[in-house]
């Protein structure tokens, strides 16, 4: 039996197609997912992300505990700021990618993916044991609503006195929106400017409605997971389960820069990650020359030989062509002439730098 977010009835009244995602009934799309995608690129989109997990790590040694438990250097994070980081196994395999907010000197909020947060909470609790820190899975205490797109500041500004211009990318502060207490964060997963609002579950519906009304004349539309996936793909952002798995290290995914070997002390995965050989394959962007779409799991080929695998693929609204992310052997990348085996036919693709799309500032 899959779980529902506090916004389930709102989604149903908007005519959403619901889908099971990581054990949750989530909106896949409300109408046309292409229109939703384009709304976020050109105006704004409203997302229910209440399936995400929220774990609080508190106490005098909360920062040190996270330094040991995660690959990042969280104890130096300023209160009010956030970091993208990962939790890995002793072997260096990625258990999840995370955003960690430092809400106060002794209060960190770890946001984990829906499919992983129970495991993440359990691992954090285990790893924090030697420290004067407390780990608490408070996922049920939060709903999460995101507003993303170039008009999101203007829309949110109608509902809050918070200093939105002063709120930097990857910053988060307590505030009030439409009279509801929220943690207001300038983060997202779309490649656009935008905000994520952590709110009490009982306030989720009125907050959603207030945002919908405030954005009605500014092109705001509700957006489902389908648009979220194509938006993050264009922005070259990894998705756990596709680009990131426990069989891969952060270095495999081209995200080695988030592993802070120079932070003080040991951390889980340090030995494995520092001794690792250079990855022999790279995560790259592919643009198909034809109209058929390379999809998750399709082999990347070269002269009939398998040289890699597609991790995510979709038709790109912004580029007007199918795009994909794939792990491809360094050798094959050097030689070029890559194809993707799309149900038996070898379709030519071009390798491009990620991201596919970068917003103009």
């Amino acid at each position, binding site marked *: 039996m899959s779980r529902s977010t506090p916004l389930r009835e709102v989604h149903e009244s908007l005519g959403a197609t619901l889908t099971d995602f990581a054990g949750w009934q989530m909106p896949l799309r409300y109408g046309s997912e292409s229109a939703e995608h384009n709304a976020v690129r050109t105006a704004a989109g409203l997302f229910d992300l209440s399936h995400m997990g929220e774990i609080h790590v508190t106490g005098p040694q909360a920062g040190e505990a996270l330094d040991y438990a995660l690959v990042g250097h969280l104890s130096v994070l300023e209160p009010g700021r956030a970091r993208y980081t990962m939790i890995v196994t002793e072997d260096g395999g990625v258990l999840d990618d995370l955003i960690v907010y430092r809400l106060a000197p002794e209060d960190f909020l770890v946001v984990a993916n829906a499919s992983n947060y129970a495991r993440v909470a359990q691992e954090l609790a285990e790893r924090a044991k030697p420290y004067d820190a407390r780990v608490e899975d408070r996922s049920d205490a939060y709903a999460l609503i995101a507003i993303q797109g170039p008009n999101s500041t203007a829309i949110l500004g109608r509902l809050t006195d918070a200093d939105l211009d002063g709120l930097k990318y990857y910053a988060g502060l307590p505030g009030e929106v439409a009279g509801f207490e929220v943690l207001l964060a300038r983060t997202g997963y779309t490649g656009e400017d935008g905000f994520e609002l952590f709110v009490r579950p009982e306030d989720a519906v009125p907050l959603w409605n207030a945002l919908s009304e405030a954005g009605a004349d500014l092109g705001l539309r509700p957006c489902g997971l389908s648009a979220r996936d194509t938006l993050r793909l264009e922005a070259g952002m990894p998705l756990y389960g596709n680009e990131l798995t426990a069989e891969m290290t952060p270095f495999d995914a081209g995200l080695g820069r988030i592993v802070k070997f120079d932070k003080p002390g040991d951390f889980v995965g340090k030995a494995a990650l520092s001794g690792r050989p250079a990855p022999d394959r790279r995560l790259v962007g592919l643009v198909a020359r034809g*109209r058929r*779409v390379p999809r998750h799991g399709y082999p990347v080929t070269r002269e009939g030989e398998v040289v890699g695998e597609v991790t995510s693929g979709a038709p790109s609204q912004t580029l007007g062509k199918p795009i994909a992310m794939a792990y491809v052997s360094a050798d094959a990348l050097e030689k070029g002439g890559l194809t993707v085996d799309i149900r038996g036919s070898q379709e030519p693709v071009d390798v491009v730098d990620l991201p596919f799309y970068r917003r103009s500032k």
Partner: protein
Amino acid sequence: MSSIPDELSYTKEHEWVAGLDDGLTVTVGVTAFAAEQLGDVVFVQVPEVGTNVEAGDAVGEVESTKSVSDIYAPVGGEIVETNQAVVDDPSLVNSDPYGEGWLFRVRVEGEPEDLLSAAEYTTLTSGES
């Protein structure tokens, strides 16, 4: 609830067949139910005119943002016409699945089998949605 016109026949693969009563050439497309399930259609591949197909053959593809589905020949015969408009603008499958979004025409050979009436197709889809 998506529309299921009474005058058409249907397949379990969510295609519709028009013109069976005339017995010569039938028109084939995907149903409104299928179009809704697929989401925005971005690519349509139709069979080549002149191809001889048997009922149940995979003869084309409909690709949406999230998925790709095979198109099957609902009847055996020769492909006599395909819809270039839907190849050029795949969104016609979403906007007008029973009209402008038709896919191909088959000159029927032999007796069509296993097609569903509108009532039978309604029962099939009410179990899936």
